[in-house]
């Protein structure tokens, strides 16, 4: 029998093993909606499939449209490729639902800007004149390093989850499929970034 700890680990790192179909779609959409709202309230934008940046004046429309482009691009690039290779092996609801679930870790990213710490620190760090007074204090440097590592871990967590979902839905192994995955990630980033720059500046 699964303990509560095991259940939590399964839901956090292997949700695709126990959630599927419309339940996965509902959870996936709910989480993306939450990520959008959190990004808006924490002054951030998911301005690319692999991007999250802090900005000064993002509207709710921009934040939501970014997410719409990112999610649509992911579903189009990964969903179409998986459907093409697996030739009708997967149900449409599983394909969409599990890809949405795979993107769930990004919901944590906006929370890293609690207290607006990073948005206020960034202009100072990027200023042309690096006066001694503008350098971050040891405490600020520690927080910066810690949260940078956290942000990096979240991106890794997300990409690993996306790769696991990709492998589950394809049910194929081999170096060629890993290379294809990396190619799809780059393609999704290129398409989403281009669309956001063209349509949602």
């Amino acid at each position, binding site marked *: 029998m699964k303990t509560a700890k095991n259940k939590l680990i399964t839901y956090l790192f292997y949700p*695709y*093993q*126990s*959630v*599927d179909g419309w339940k*996965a779609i509902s959870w996936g959409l709910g989480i993306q909606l939450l990520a959008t709202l959190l990004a808006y309230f924490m002054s951030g934008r998911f301005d690319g499939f692999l991007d999250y940046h802090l900005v000064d004046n993002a509207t709710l429309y921009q934040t939501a449209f970014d997410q719409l482009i990112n999610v649509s691009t992911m579903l189009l690039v990964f969903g179409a490729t998986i459907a093409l290779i697996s030739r009708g092996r997967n149900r449409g609801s599983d394909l969409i639902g599990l890809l949405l679930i795979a993107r769930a870790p990004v919901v944590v990213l906006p929370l890293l800007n609690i207290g607006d710490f990073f948005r206020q620190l960034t202009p100072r760090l990027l200023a042309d004149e690096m006066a001694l007074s503008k350098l971050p204090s040891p405490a600020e440097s520690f927080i910066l390093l810690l949260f940078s590592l956290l942000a990096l871990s979240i991106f890794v967590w997300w990409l690993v989850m996306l790769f696991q979902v990709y492998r*589950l839905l394809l049910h194929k192994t081999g170096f060629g499929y890993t290379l294809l995955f990396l190619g799809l990630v780059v393609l999704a980033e290129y398409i989403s970034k281009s669309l956001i720059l063209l349509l949602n500046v």
Partner: protein
Amino acid sequence: MKKLPVVCPSCEAQLQVKTLCCASCATTVEGDFKLPVLARLNPEELNFALAFIKSSGSLKEMSALLNLSYPTVRNMLDDLIQQLQKFEDENGKK
């Protein structure tokens, strides 16, 4: 219940049935009998196959029974089919 050994502990080749015995009258039959492919599955695979048959081949029902997602169950079934195919090919060669 004792686990049926299907692989030779010495050279890891597939074991065959040499003797069959009637539990009622103790009559024994000797010969060279190949193990049926289902008997060569490990306990987990066999339990999965039995549950699949009992659920009338419904992956959706299996998914609910095992508390696993539909694609996970589908992959387990595909692995099992591949394993059975491998055993059938091996039996066919011999």
